[in-house]
């Protein structure tokens, strides 16, 4: 669908012309044409192509609002008919509700369009490239590619449109139960770069050939690779940085907010839209500052605050999305040189990945989760062997606070690989982390 913007313009103009002067309407578009290739044993288990175009109408009047989402058929007559029926129903339902404390009057937040294109192999070629490159390996994973579009339009004249095309290959290689994680995403597909990444992952798998070390539960010094740090940040993002969560009693960082506890001075977290992979506008079309500081040198600067939350609690919005999850977070780099990681770790655990992290106690900001994939026991800076998976249960106040020794001076960028219901669009940039007294419980 190359002319989605044109279609959306025609669709929105027709809908807006049907509104009374007392009514407002916002439109939010998610549109994707995706290829998903699912691999097991380096062969294709399932291939799915998806054309999914979803529009959310937010109908507002008298300080009340209702949102209605449906799929576009891209037949203008059919889609307009559906939209008008939805608006008619909203006109019946809305007066029977109350004024919304989260009401945000629609305003014109401007006009913009961004198009990003990439070079990547044709959809038919991908299965052959991957199957052949990994024919000597036991690979499981997902290739995802294709255009993705977002737009926020409203009856006040706002029209923000963002269209990108990207790919990622999220995979793991196996030797029996031992596994190493691989990941490839780039602005352009480069077959040599792709092969080098594959070799790196194959080499990592070879490091797992040493006998497994059984590490008993206890507290250890650990090094977390950037992907493991990203897993922790991903869970922190769930309620942990949200203003409304704090106001409603679900904030794990309540003690940080209320100056009872602090994180390490080495910990700085911000929304950094300069990373460039996310649209600058949120679902109601507000444009964020290029950088929004959240936690600076261990002290809370800002929770993510949507305008809805700001209106409800009389605060200042920083134009977060409704869910108040970060869209482009970055943890600032530290000083630890990559070549010194094992030496600085000394004796402890080298953890490449973590799995299934969840809050185990919101009040103390405690997280539990598992080690996963290539994780090693290290003694005096030397890898002794892979470990059997361990469960950790540890507070954010130790992980990024009293236990944080240093972040690496290199960071890695990870595109959002979430595909629940539809593809997610986002990115995060994090360094590796050396942490002491990390608590393992099972």
């Amino acid at each position: 669908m190359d002319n989605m913007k044109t279609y959306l313009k025609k669709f929105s103009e027709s809908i807006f012309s049907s509104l009374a002067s007392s009514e407002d309407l916002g439109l939010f578009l998610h549109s994707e044409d995706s290829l998903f290739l699912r691999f097991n044993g380096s062969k294709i288990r399932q291939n799915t192509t998806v054309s999914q175009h979803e529009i959310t109408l937010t109908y507002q009047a008298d300080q009340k609002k209702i949102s209605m989402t449906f799929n576009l058929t891209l037949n203008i007559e059919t889609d307009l008919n559906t939209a008008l029926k939805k608006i008619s129903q909203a006109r019946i339902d809305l007066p029977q509700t109350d004024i919304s404390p989260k009401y945000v009057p629609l305003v014109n937040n401007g006009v913009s369009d961004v198009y990003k294109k990439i070079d990547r192999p044709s959809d038919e070629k991908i299965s052959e490239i991957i199957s052949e490159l990994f024919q000597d390996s036991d690979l499981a994973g997902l290739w995802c590619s294709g255009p993705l579009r977002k737009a926020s339009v409203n009856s006040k004249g706002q029209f923000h449109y963002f269209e990108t095309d990207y790919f990622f290959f999220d995979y793991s290689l196996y030797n029996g139960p031992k596994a190493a994680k691989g990941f490839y995403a780039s602005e352009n597909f480069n077959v040599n770069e792709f092969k080098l990444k594959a070799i790196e992952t194959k080499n990592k798998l070879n490091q797992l050939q040493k006998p497994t070390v059984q590490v008993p539960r206890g507290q250890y010094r650990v090094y977390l690779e950037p992907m493991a740090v990203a897993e922790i940040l991903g869970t922190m993002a769930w309620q942990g940085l949200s203003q409304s969560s704090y106001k409603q009693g679900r904030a794990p960082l309540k003690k940080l907010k209320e100056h009872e506890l602090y994180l390490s001075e080495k910990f700085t977290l911000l929304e950094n839209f300069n990373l460039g992979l996310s649209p600058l506008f949120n679902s109601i079309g507000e444009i964020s500052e290029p950088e929004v500081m959240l936690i600076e040198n261990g002290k809370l600067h800002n929770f993510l605050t949507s305008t809805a939350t700001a209106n409800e609690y009389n605060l200042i919005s920083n134009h977060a999305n409704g869910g108040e999850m970060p869209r482009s977070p970055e943890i600032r780099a530290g000083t630890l040189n990559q070549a010194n990681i094992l030496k600085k770790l000394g004796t402890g655990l080298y953890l490449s990945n973590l799995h299934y992290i969840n809050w185990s106690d919101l009040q103390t900001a405690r997280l539990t989760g598992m080690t996963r994939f290539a994780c090693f026991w290290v003694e005096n800076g030397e890898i002794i062997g892979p470990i059997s998976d361990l469960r950790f249960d540890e507070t954010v106040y130790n992980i990024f606070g009293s236990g944080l020794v240093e972040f690496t001076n290199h960071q890695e960028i990870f595109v959002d690989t979430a595909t629940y219901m539809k593809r997610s669009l986002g990115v995060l940039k994090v360094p590796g982390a050396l942490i002491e007294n990390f608590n393992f419980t099972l």
Partner: protein
Amino acid sequence: MQTQNKENLFFESEFKKYRGLADFVAFKKIHEHTRDLSARNGKPDNIRSFDDSGLLIEIMCDGHIGYGATCQLTTEGIKSAFDQALKITEAASKHSVYKFNERVRPPANGEYISARQKSLDQISTAEIYDFLKTTSLKLKSSDQIITATSDAMIIECDQKYISSNGSDFHQNFNIVINSLSATAQSGPETQRRSLHGGRGNCRQIGAEHFNLQNALSECENISREAIELLTAENCPTETCDLILAPDQMLLQIHESIGHPLELDRILGDERNFAGWSFVQPKDFGQLQYGSPLMNVDFDPTVSDEMASYKFDEIGHLAEKKSLIKNGILQAGLGSLESQIRSGLSGVANARSSSWNRAPIDRMANINLQGGDLTLNEMISKISRGVIMFANRSWSIDDYRRKFQFGCEYGKLIENGQITKTLKNPNYRSVTIPFWNSLAGLTKPDTVETYGSPYCGKGEPSQIIRVGHSSPYAMFKNIEVFGG
């Protein structure tokens, strides 16, 4: 009705154009209308609706099955989706995991309609909002309750499947997911209590679900217990006996029985994302999964449970099957595709989250049978232990061995009697030793049925609806701990 007939005629006429263009072709059309409303402290929090309509095309080329999905339900949209799916499936068939045949798509004809007294389309959005507003105000029984939330998802889902080898079936689901929760705060202490934890209170039912008097009674209990937790003692850290209420057992069954028995996990399909399984093919018929008290069934035939259906989404007739009998592992949760690949027996559980995802092995309803104790008899058998209610935290490893779960509300048991309320109750263990420590189950008339709308799995990822029923269960010598 006239519109639906017109849509079905269009769907069937389009299918006829494509049914002969591959070794096997099937069309699955889904329309799902969801109303998702919530009221917080007596005011609207969210009033939303979702209409998810689309078509999933299945194509078999040289034994490989590929999929094309589109919401463009027009002649041009369907042609584009079919052509693209055929092109990719032909290319992928040269590198396919397995060469299937039509045995994995049995001809199926019939209809399923969720049991209901009053269809969900008979309750208006205003009526639902009033119910939520009234209950959220009831939950806010004191200033200590800072957040009182009542929410409901009302789902009407319609599926139709036709295939080139003669399938033609229709399934219609009415589902209600209704949550009530109260968050209490006093100084540094914050505690939350809810109706059976998160969105565990869910089932196939009609508009008769919205019984205000019952809900108001639940609200009283929830807000009272949230306030009670503010001054409760922390759960002790020790190894003792543990009773889990059915609204925690739902999670225990889901994570440590349902997922490890999925054949696609055992076959490695999920290794990169959701994970593998500690269960090996040789374990079926032999593994002492739990104590002899443990009897677990796959049962998609229960009339009001969350994941009941007549056919799975590839036309396999759904039937009850014993998974674990007297503690011995009997069968896995694998669809026809996984059964053929593994050589193991399975069930009818190829399901997808919607029209835009391929069907994979999902667990549907997994139920633990009742035992022979009353709850009082069970408590009287414990000299020191904890009883825990309603899940609030969960994590398990990618092989489904080491888990740690937390609950909203606990009670200390001393010398056969409940003595005090406990906050922040948690426990951790390893799947097989844990289930082998099962020492008692309450009677079948104490079995309660819950579920989840949010079981996540798959690449690309999918959420699916599952149901779990259980009695109270007693486990010996489990590590428990507090906040």
